[in-house]
């Protein structure tokens, strides 16, 4: 029973971190894209709608890329840590 409680608490925390890190990675990529657009079109620096369109198109398949999927590791690592602790402490 306590074991179940721990698993549930871990899942909740993992999900929160997963969401936060996902948003962060997305915003990193968006900012890089914006900089790239500014580099390509220095004369159109104030043209926000065009820049947004460029960023939107480039971000279209982002959820399926490796970088976005790697964030899923957040779900695996705590389980590994728990197993590691159990083995190390009860040695």
């Amino acid at each position, binding site marked *: *029973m*306590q*074991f179940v*409680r*721990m698993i549930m*608490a871990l899942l909740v925390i993992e999900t929160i971190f997963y969401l*936060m890190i996902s*948003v*962060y990675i997305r*915003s990193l990529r968006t*900012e890089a894209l914006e900089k790239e657009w500014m580099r390509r079109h220095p004369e159109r620096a104030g043209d926000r709608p065009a820049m947004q369109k460029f960023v939107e198109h480039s971000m279209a398949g982002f959820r399926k890329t490796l970088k976005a999927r790697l964030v899923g590791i957040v779900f695996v690592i705590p389980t590994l840590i*728990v197993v590691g*602790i*159990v083995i190390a*402490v*009860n*040695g």
Partner: protein
Amino acid sequence: MKYIRTALFIILLPALFLFVDYVLPKNEIVRVNDTYSRITDIGMNAMFYAQEDVVAGADAAGQTRRDIRFISAVTPEGNVRVYRNEDTGWVYPPYFKYDSANLQAEAAALVSNEDTPKWAMTTSYGWRIAWLSIYPNAVSVKRVESTDVSTINVVGLAVLLFMFWTVQFLNRGYHRLMRRSVDPTLADLDARADAFRAGVVAGAEERTRGTRQWLGTWKGKPRPPKT
């Protein structure tokens, strides 16, 4: 706002430090003196002992009597250390310790006296506060050859570093969020509010013309100035 932040820091940082100091493991080199079990009353200080789900037994008064294993030891300088040796639960602190009987046997095997000491490295977490009757929980007891072995706890340091990294990540994320999403939105709202206000002022004359005209009909008819 700044005062609220300062006050929060002053309250939260020591609490955080105490929490971390209680939960993270520390190593100590000691000579094990004795291992024993004692039936102990646990009342108000139950928070510092293992949770009830792990060990059964509670009576009506809310006090529990439990059989708790102890390890008493002496440091090279002559100070005494008393540890308890209890299984931790699955929930907290996350040590997942279930081999306290084994640990007791290991500690008993290392009992030695002052003339022929067998030094041991204990890993433990928790505090020894005598007036609360709480003891640190020994997690492992391992034989070491001399008292010069390093007592740096790698795991504890790693956990601390991870906590620092998490705080830094959250801080960076917060500033990033402010800079990229909140500030532009607020600036946009500001600009719109300004434009609206300017529009109100500019169009006021136009919009109030009808009313002013009607009010004007209550004044006297325009008369030529008296000469």
